[in-house]
């Protein structure tokens, strides 16, 4: 029986066991790295999905009002009428302390829940008793809490009226309660419940909703409504259901009958009514009209003045007599008080609406067009809005108007007016004029009035089911799908580990090349025989391909299984020593056929292509008419490339000296090319003429040189491996993100600021003012140089490198960029161009246009977190649910703002008006007093849950991620090199096989075996030295900028590596 091709292949593979085993192992290594990387990526994403599912529990769709609240009745109505399995939650931020140890946890998520919450989550047995709280294991572990311990909880109190709204009553910044820990919840009992998209385990406190409500008679307000998984339920369907179920009261609108004028008006619990809502109501009831009533500080005419009066700006449609522009109607009482006649000019003063307690008084003159008697529509006390600190007051002196009231200026007659007429406005102007003066970010009206002929029931009927939730601060989020998508689009660990394992893959490919070459060389005479027997080249190629291919397939198959183990190992390392890269220890190793099969396929294709090329080349050489002997290497081309690479390297080095801005990149390129030069130089040394018989060279040395000059690759490849490995480890160490002087400069990542402060309870005082500083006792002389830049914050999903998920709604910071411009703070990696803008920070001051503003973020956040670039538009939702287009104007170089989108302060206040005070400080001053500043701020703002850290510590936390990746790269690089060197063992064996005759000759001519051993030892020592020099020198050039700033070179690691190589070589 004649053996077929398959039979020959099988027999050959069985016969050449050792070379086959080498090839199988090398391909298996290659396949294991590829499959392991792919499976790791898959596992990370699967873990993120699992974590998201665990955090969300049964909540599939979220209805959120952001910083606002809505009536729990809406949740109940949805549950009862639409049969939605839902539960309402009030989510608030706060911090907590163990009462006995005073140890605290900042940025705590406090969920005020009804008993139905745990039922909703499928944890029927969990109950929180009144006066008790449940904490999750993370908090319990952090604070050492157990059942029965007392816990101080301080949180940001929610309310209908935004804290910064005009005339909002002054409230304490946050509220504290002391509760007992009733239960510690594990992940299975929803302890890690979170509505954020992040793999980080949250720090949660669950509290009974009833325990957090101050006024038990008021409707219970919530800000999150969770809707459970239901296959047929989509976010769109929930939106429709919500819209149909929504009533004006759900949005805090109350219908008030008007005694004086007849008809009704709608008032908002927020006092001011937003334009979008006015528009919606107008769409349903065109006859409706908004009005605004404001508190003036003073009316003055000539020498007389009257303090604290309400003025109404009325719509012409309902008040046809109202004059336009700067004409004013005043009532008889005011006219008599100030002795005003028709046609006189009256000056009105008022506080312009602003946050941060900045009191800016404005004044304007009006012409008295008419004086009206205190009767009918002109004596309408209902025109005064429900300013909570004013409305219920018995006297003017009791007012809590949110602004300073000068009690001394209040006269007896003013008190008498208040007693008799309450807040009845004393003056009237047109709505258009009034809204221009007092319209603010919270809305342009304090009420919407309807004509007399429209009844209350009709108003409610026409509005119910017709108000768009999305335009009124309610967002419907497909929580489940969004978080799964965020996980699917998360940091691609497959590519990352393939990149990090580049050296290992490269080592495997080089080894494969050696193994295949050796294998083919060993079959040289056989191939010649096949040719001689008349086999076609194609058939021989097929035979060789079938042989090598089947061996490779075996390697791929084994490697795929090894890849599973590799992935498990990587996941374990990510959960432990490499946790810095993933910020969690909850990753799990998942198995899926897809990445394993893909890894197998990639490895198979890669080795297949490689084998085809290698075999074709080999056959081409062996085929007739081609030279079948080894050719001496070309010195000419070596010299050309040598000189060329040196020149290019030098050119880049000179450029790096000239262009300091790009010094790091240019030095790296220069060093990398120098590495090529060093290898070529080594090769040229081996093959250069005159070297072989140079005087003083011993016979053994001469033989070595003769051999390596003829086969330079046998000495070049080990040097290449050693040099590349040392280069990789060196640059990895030198490029570790560490602190240097440049980071502390204003242009560095710290912006030149000393401290970054993060507070859970917003600070409402302006710390640039004397009174603001005094409120926190920051007026000590030693703090005189301390300057604070206050920044507002709107919560979102962390977009820094600490979050692996692909985030679409990052947290937003509102900052006044003028301070950054004047200080020259921070540097930009990229920016868009616009006429008139010289500094990218100036983009933040450009006013909004059609819901479009400019924003700035860290380049890293843009590239990795948000996957956008300058010029792109990031669409987020403003506080009231409107689409807010943020055009990315610039990308910051690595800075303390990582994770955030920065917008201008004015734009922030416009689109997120309900966000009170500021939550982030950047602090500067005398750097010798940094510790004093930090301790003082931590102490003075303790009630705000402020945590001050040095800006370099904050940057270091972000750098840890990069540094961990670099560590992984270093480990993989070293592993690749060690593997390469280990694999080179058989290459060296082949070298010495080649030289059998040479050694035999030496022995035959009387050389002692010791001398031959010394020859081999010397050769390897020279190769090792050449490798070290060729690696270190380019690495030094590559990392010169880092070395100049005393970067951390892993000398110990390098020495250990050299020792390992040394041991392996011998």
């Amino acid at each position, binding site marked *: 029986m004649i*053996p077929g091709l398959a039979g*020959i292949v099988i*027999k050959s593979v069985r016969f050449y066991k050792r070379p086959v085993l080498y090839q199988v192992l090398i391909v298996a290594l290659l396949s294991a790295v590829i499959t392991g990387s792919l499976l790791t990526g898959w596992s990370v994403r699967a873990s993120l999905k699992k974590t998201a599912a665990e955090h969300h529990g049964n909540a599939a769709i979220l209805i959120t009002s952001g910083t606002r609240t809505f009536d729990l009745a809406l949740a109940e109505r949805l549950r009862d009428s639409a049969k939605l399995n839902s539960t309402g939650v009030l989510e608030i931020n706060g911090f907590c302390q163990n009462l006995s140890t005073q140890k605290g946890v900042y940025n705590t998520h406090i969920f005020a829940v009804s008993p139905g919450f745990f039922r909703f989550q499928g944890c029927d047995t969990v109950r929180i008793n009144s006066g008790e709280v449940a904490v999750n294991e993370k908090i319990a572990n952090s604070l050492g809490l157990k059942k029965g311990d007392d816990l101080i909880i301080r949180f940001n109190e929610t309310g209908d009226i935004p804290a910064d709204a005009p005339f909002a009553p002054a409230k304490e910044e946050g509220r504290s309660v002391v509760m007992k820990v009733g239960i510690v919840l594990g992940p299975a009992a929803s302890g890690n419940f979170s509505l954020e998209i992040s793999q980080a385990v949250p720090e949660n406190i669950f509290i009974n909703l009833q325990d957090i409500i101050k006024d038990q008679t008021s409707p219970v307000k919530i800000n999150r409504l969770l809707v459970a998984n239901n296959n047929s339920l989509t976010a769109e369907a929930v939106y429709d259901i919500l819209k149909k179920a929504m009533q004006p009261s759900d949005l805090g609108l109350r219908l008030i009958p008007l005694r004086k004028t007849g008809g009704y008006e709608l008032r908002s619990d927020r006092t001011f009514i937003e334009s979008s809502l006015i528009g919606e109501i107008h769409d349903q009831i065109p006859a409706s009209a908004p009005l605004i009533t404001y508190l003036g500080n003073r009316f003055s005419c000539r020498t007389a003045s009257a303090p604290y009066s309400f003025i109404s700006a009325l719509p012409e449609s309902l008040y046809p007599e109202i004059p336009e522009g700067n004409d004013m109607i005043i009532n008889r009482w005011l006219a008599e008080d100030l002795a005003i006649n028709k046609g006189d000019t009256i000056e009105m003063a008022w506080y312009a609406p602003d946050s941060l307690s900045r009191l800016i008084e404005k004044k304007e003159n009006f012409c008295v067009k008419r004086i009206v008697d205190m009767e009918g529509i002109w004596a309408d006390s209902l025109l005064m809005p429900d300013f909570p600190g004013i409305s219920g007051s018995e006297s003017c002196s009791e007012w809590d108007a949110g602004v300073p009231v000068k009690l001394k200026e209040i006269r007896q007659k003013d008190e008498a007016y208040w007693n008799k007429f309450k807040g009845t406005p004393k003056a009237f102007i047109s709505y258009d004029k009034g809204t221009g003066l007092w319209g603010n970010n919270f809305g342009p009206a304090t009420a919407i009035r309807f004509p007399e002929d429209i009844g209350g029931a009709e108003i409610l009927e026409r509005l119910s089911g017709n108000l768009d939730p999305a335009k009124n601060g309610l967002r419907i989020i497909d929580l489940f799908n969004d978080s799964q998508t965020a996980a699917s689009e998360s940091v691609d660990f497959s590519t990352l580990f393939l990149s990090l394992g580049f050296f290992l893959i490269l080592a495997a490919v080089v080894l494969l090349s050696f193994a295949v070459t050796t294998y083919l060389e060993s079959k040289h005479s056989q191939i010649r*025989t096949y*040719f*001689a*027997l*008349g086999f*076609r080249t194609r058939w021989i190629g097929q035979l060789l391909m079938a042989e090598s291919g089947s061996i490779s397939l075996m390697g791929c198959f084994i490697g795929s299984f090894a890849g599973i183990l590799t992935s498990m190992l990587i996941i374990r390392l990510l959960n432990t020593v490499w946790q810095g890269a993933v910020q969690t220890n909850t990753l799990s190793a998942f198995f899926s056929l897809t990445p394993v099969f893909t890894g197998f396929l990639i490895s198979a294709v890669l080795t297949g292509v490689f084998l085809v090329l290698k075999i074709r080349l080999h056959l081409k050489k062996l085929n*007739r008419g081609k030279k079948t002997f080894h050719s001496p290497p070309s010195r000419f081309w070596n010299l050309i490339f040598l000189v060329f690479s040196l020149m290019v390297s030098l050119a880049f080095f000179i450029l790096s000296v000239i262009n300091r801005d790009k010094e790091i990149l240019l030095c790296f390129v220069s060093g990398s090319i120098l590495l090529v030069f060093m290898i070529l130089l080594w090769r040229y040394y081996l093959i250069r003429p005159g070297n072989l018989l140079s005087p003083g060279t011993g016979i053994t040395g001469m033989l070595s040189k003769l051999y390596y000059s003829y086969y330079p690759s046998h000495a070049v490849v080990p040097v290449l491996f050693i040099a590349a490995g040392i280069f990789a480890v060196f640059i990895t160490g030198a490029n570790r993100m560490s602190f240097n002087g440049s980071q502390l400069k204003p242009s560095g990542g710290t912006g030149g600021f000393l401290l970054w402060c993060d507070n859970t309870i917003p600070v409402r005082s302006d710390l640039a003012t004397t009174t603001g500083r005094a409120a926190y006792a920051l007026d000590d002389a030693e703090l005189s140089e301390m300057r604070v830049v206050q920044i507002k914050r709107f919560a979102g999903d962390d977009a820094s490198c600490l979050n692996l998920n692909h985030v679409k709604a990052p947290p937003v910071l509102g900052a006044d960029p003028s301070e950054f411009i004047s200080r020259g703070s921070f540097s930009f990696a990229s920016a868009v161009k616009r006429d008139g803008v010289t500094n990218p920070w100036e983009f933040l001051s450009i006013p909004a246009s059609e819901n479009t503003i400019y924003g700035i973020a860290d380049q890293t956040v843009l590239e990795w977190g948000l996957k956008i670039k300058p010029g792109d538009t990031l669409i987020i939702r403003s506080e009231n649910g409107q689409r807010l287009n943020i055009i990315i104007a610039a990308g910051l170089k690595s800075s303390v703002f990582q994770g955030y989108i920065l917008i201008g302060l004015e734009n922030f206040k416009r689109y997120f008006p309900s966000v009170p005070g500021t939550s982030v400080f950047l602090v500067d001053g005398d750097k010798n007093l940094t510790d004093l500043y930090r301790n003082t701020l931590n102490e003075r703002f303790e009630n705000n849950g402020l945590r001050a850290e040095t800006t370099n510590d904050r940057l270091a936390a972000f750098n840890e991620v990069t540094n961990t990746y670099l560590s992984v790269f270093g480990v993989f690089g070293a592993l690749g090199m060690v593997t390469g060197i280990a694999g080179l063992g058989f290459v060296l064996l082949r070298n010495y096989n080649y030289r059998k005759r040479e050694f035999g000759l030496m022995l035959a001519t009387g050389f002692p075996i010791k001398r031959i051993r010394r020859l081999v030892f010397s050769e390897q020592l020279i190769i090792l030295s050449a490798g070290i020099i060729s690696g270190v020198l380019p690495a030094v050039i590559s990392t010169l900028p880092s070395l100049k700033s005393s970067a951390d070179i892993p000398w110990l690691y390098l020495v250990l590596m050299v020792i390992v190589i040394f041991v392996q070589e011998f």
Partner: protein
Amino acid sequence: MLSLRNISKSFIQRGLVLDNLSLDVSAGDTLAIMGPSGSGKTTLMNIIGLLEKPDSGMITFLGNDIRNYNDDESALYRSSNIGFVFQDHLLLPHLTVRENILLPILALKQSRAEAQMKEEEAFTLMRKTGISELSAKYPGTISGGEAQRAALVRALVNKPSILLADEPTGSLDADNAEIMGELLSEMNSELGITLILATHSDKLAGKMARTMILGHGKLI
């Protein structure tokens, strides 16, 4: 049958090896080419077998110019007309003696019946050369002489017109060299195969009808 005209061949390292060489070989002819090492004997054999291409000159086989044959045509020429015997037997170590001998049948596209017939003829040759008992053995387990006889049978399996033997007794002891020489002569006389062999052995050359000396690139 085979004609080489003005064949020249040179190598970078060795310089001119064949210099305007011409040779005519008739069917059934036996020719020994002798010459010192490096004189170009192997190169000449390789050129005849189209394993190497001459720099210039013309090669005709049965009147056809075969010098510019492409790879497939060359392979077909070798498998149909040429049998090679090398100094080292070059049996494939992973195949048995029998499999090695039958291997050339795979190189030719032929019917199952033809292949079977050649297989039977191969067994006959194996018996004739005294290696039929070694059929299932691997080359590594047999002697050099046996391996060279197996290589001879392998070269004859496809019934070539020309047998090219490059130092066929070079690695054999005197007894085995004698046997090999006898076998080669028998194959020529019994099968009518044209025999061209390169050798240093006067004894072996003496068995051939013609002996030519290759020196300075020319045949004398």
